[in-house]
């Protein structure tokens, strides 16, 4: 199909766009449109579509805009909830990984240096507070054997790391 257009097409299109076809059209142009295939197609198609548009628009069931406004607001709110949920989830996963890493590290350390604190735990019901003092003293004197300090410190570190990651993600 050869793409050819008539020089009068723009003029006809403008009249159609303004709704002035065929009433405000010069007789010469009307005669041209009836003879020219391209302009005839344009006039026929445009008038058919404009008529169909006004008929269809008249039949449109129009609902309240308030319902749509409310639905959109709900959707925006859900999107916002989802958005803030992402960094929280990331922080939780990060904190969990840190904790697992600490636990594994501690177990490896204990396996290598002996399970002295297990013996202390086993003797706990027999001796009461005396053992706590002993543990405390030995923890302070021997930094290598320090589960009482190490565990809360690392747990705090993990918690803070999680919070830091959350705040960083939230700012982004």
């Amino acid at each position, binding site marked *: 199909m050869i793409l050819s257009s008539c020089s009068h097409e723009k003029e006809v299109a403008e009249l159609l766009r303004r709704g002035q076809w065929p009433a405000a059209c010069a007789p010469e142009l009307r005669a041209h449109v009836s003879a020219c295939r391209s302009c005839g197609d344009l006039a026929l198609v*445009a008038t058919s579509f404009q008529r169909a*548009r006004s008929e*269809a*628009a*008249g039949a449109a*069931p129009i609902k309240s805009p*308030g319902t*749509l406004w409310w639905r959109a607001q709900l959707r925006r709110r859900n999107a916002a909830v989802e958005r803030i949920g992402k960094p929280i989830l990331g922080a939780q996963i990060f904190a969990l990984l840190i904790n697992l890493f600490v636990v594994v590290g501690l177990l490896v350390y204990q396996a290598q240096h002996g399970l002295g604190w297990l013996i202390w735990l086993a003797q706990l019901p027999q001796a009461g507070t005396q053992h706590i003092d002993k543990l405390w003293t030995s923890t302070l004197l021997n930094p290598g054997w320090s589960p009482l300090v190490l565990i809360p410190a690392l747990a705090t570190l993990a918690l803070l790391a999680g919070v830091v990651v959350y705040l960083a993600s939230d700012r982004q």
Partner: protein
Amino acid sequence: MKEPLPMHRESVLPNVLAGDALRVEEPPMDSDAFAGFYERSARPLWAYLARVSGDTALADDLMQESFVRFLCAQQPEEGEVADRRYLFRIATNLLRDHWRRPRTASIEELSEELFAASASSDQADVLGPALALMRPRERQLLWLAYAEGYTHREIAEVTGLATASIRLLLFRARHKIANLLREQNSTLRRQP
């Protein structure tokens, strides 16, 4: 002496404990402006969806979804004409998604017979049967060009096609539907 800064929970964990974390994006227009925009745009949009899809129930659903997505979208304020064009773009994408969904095929690969049955059911005018024989893409282009009066550039923006290809596609579609309309008219004239 300088007053110490108050230590609020919000300053430690901003947005989270205070409940400000739920920052809901502002809609592109307020509710009154939207009501006016809806009043002026809903009918043309429904007409477009109903005529191109040939399914009035689908047109209802897609029109509502288009407006909701329009309100949820963040776009620069460029006036009502641009807003309406954007709305038609959303509707066009929804329509394309709808056609792709059941058969996972391209819009171009779908046959016009698939749409003809539903389209002709409630279209008693001359354009209806002719439109039902057109491809969905052709219907979209024809409607946007001749019912909405969009330029080739605007149609390209709405449909996502290249501006250069719109001219050729539209020329072919116009030629095809003009022939169909002439056939319809001559058939109607022959009928007693």
